[in-house]
């Protein structure tokens, strides 16, 4: 297991490097000049050159990349901002804030949003999927299946805007979405995130309902489930110990990947609810040609996905002994 982890971490580091290099190249391939952002209304070539120097983008691309890469491990000295200790992700082109600090500031919001909604959509999604599978073909199954079809075709920004309008503006049942650190005020943390959790869950719940149902329908018809029944085990035992165990693998896999993606920022949800998370940060980085920030959020997003991949692999091995030895 240790060697497996080590191998995965080394592989992950290589992938991150490749991703960062690709971002670098793509960024400069686009026909836009980040220096013009800070060049004023009458942008003379002299001022433009000065801006480039200030931003550290006057050097050739490989040199820039090397400086960035070096900064990760040994830190960097900036003429304008002073020393940036390792791991240094640089300073934002847009507002001169340290990239790492900004990301660390935003990450708890994204994690709170992701984990909270994950709790909701796993409970409701898997729960209703189980019910639908048990009651295959019955009314309950049909209701759950059509509800999930509707749910998965909904868009967050529509549901979100409507939910704010109804529950916050009109009925006043829920607070206007906002983020308060859990450590500061758990109550405000909960009430401020409740609406985003529920709305984000609507879409995911639907997926998990359908997936759980189809996985269970498949495993319930497995021979080993029939064997378990032939052994005289109670229906409940058969369902959970055998059918669910078999269905869990793919669900855990998807869940891990979903969480990885969510940790990289639930862009639309954050935008809809005005939450300042990684997703919002990444949109802003793209729209303002903010290369250091863009690299930072891409690294965070990619790391989240890689980490969850490793976790998924490990959990899968726990669930399915066939994988463990293969």
């Amino acid at each position, binding site marked *: 297991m240790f060697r497996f982890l080590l191998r995965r971490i080394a592989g992950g580091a290589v992938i991150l490097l490749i991703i960062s290099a690709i971002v670098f190249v793509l960024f400069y391939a686009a026909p836009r000049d980040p220096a013009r952002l800070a060049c004023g209304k009458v942008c003379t070539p002299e001022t433009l050159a000065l801006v480039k120097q200030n931003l550290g983008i006057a050097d050739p691309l490989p040199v820039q990349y090397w400086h960035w890469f070096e900064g990760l491990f040994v830190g960097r000295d900036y003429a304008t901002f002073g020393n940036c200790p390792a791991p240094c992700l640089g300073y934002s082109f847009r507002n001169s804030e340290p990239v790492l600090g900004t990301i660390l500031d935003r990450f708890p919001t994204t994690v709170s949003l992701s984990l909270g909604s994950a709790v909701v959509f796993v409970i409701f999604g898997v729960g209703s999927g189980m019910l639908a599978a048990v009651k295959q073909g019955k009314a309950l199954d049909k209701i759950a299946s059509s509800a999930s079809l509707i749910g998965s075709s909904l868009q967050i920004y529509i549901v979100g805007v409507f939910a704010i309008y109804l529950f916050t503006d009109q009925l006043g049942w829920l607070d206007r979405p906002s983020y308060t650190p859990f450590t500061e005020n758990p109550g405000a943390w909960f009430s401020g995130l409740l609406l985003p959790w529920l709305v984000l869950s609507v879409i995911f719940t639907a997926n998990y309902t359908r997936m759980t149902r189809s996985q269970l329908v498949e495993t319930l018809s497995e*021979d080993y489930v029939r*064997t378990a029944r*032939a*052994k005289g085990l109670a*229906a409940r035992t058969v369902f959970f110990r055998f059918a669910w*165990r*078999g269905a869990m693998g793919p669900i855990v896999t998807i869940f891990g990947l979903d969480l990885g993606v969510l940790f990289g920022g639930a862009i639309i949800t954050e935008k809809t609810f005005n939450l300042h998370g990684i997703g919002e940060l990444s949109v802003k980085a793209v729209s303002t040609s903010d290369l250091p920030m863009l690299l930072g959020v891409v690294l965070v997003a990619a790391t989240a996905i890689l980490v969850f991949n490793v976790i998924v692999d490990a959990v899968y091995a726990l669930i*399915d*002994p066939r994988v463990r030895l293969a």
Partner: protein
Amino acid sequence: MSTPFLSVRDLRVHFSTEDGVVKAVDGLDFDLEQGKTLGIVGESGSGKSVTNLAILGLHHKDSTAIGGEILLDGQELLTATERELERLRGNKMAMIFQDALASLSPYHTIGRQIGETYRKHTGASKKEARARSIEMLTKVGIPQPDLRVDDYPHQFSGGMRQRAMIAMSLVCNPTLLIADEPTTALDVTVQAQIMDLLKDLQQEFGTSIIFITHDLGVIADIATTSS
């Protein structure tokens, strides 16, 4: 002829499918005495397996209509409640399936799968169940049973899996064993070994066996009655 231990009368098994009702079994009668073997031969799809699943009550209740009567040791099975059936399955009547790899859970050890039947019906402790599993594995001829008991099915060879399956079905000394093509998936030498094993065990436990196959040669080897 003594009173039959298992008696099937006018059994009708009809499925409703998208293309209409399929009469898989229509008016089947047979009796089976204690310690005897009944062989059922037929082409695939001729209703053999369905009949036997119906005995255990494992057919699809929603899409299958069953008529007639099945008496096991004087108890009517078709009208029995699910709870009554659960008590009988694996205990008084057990089944061996054709594809042992698919029929054993890939997620649990062999020992656990054998033991859980035992625990369910006897209320034995984990430790007792484990001892019983090792004992059964020994009986069906698995080498180093105290080690292999913790293996998973995919770590067993095909023949060993079928032996483990037999061990699992016999763990509670059932009086009726339904073997649904237990040797079909195995190569010839292993087939013979399994057949021998079944015969030996039948003698030891006095089990009645319904043996389903499409292979007449196998039937000739084991059956006391053919149907």
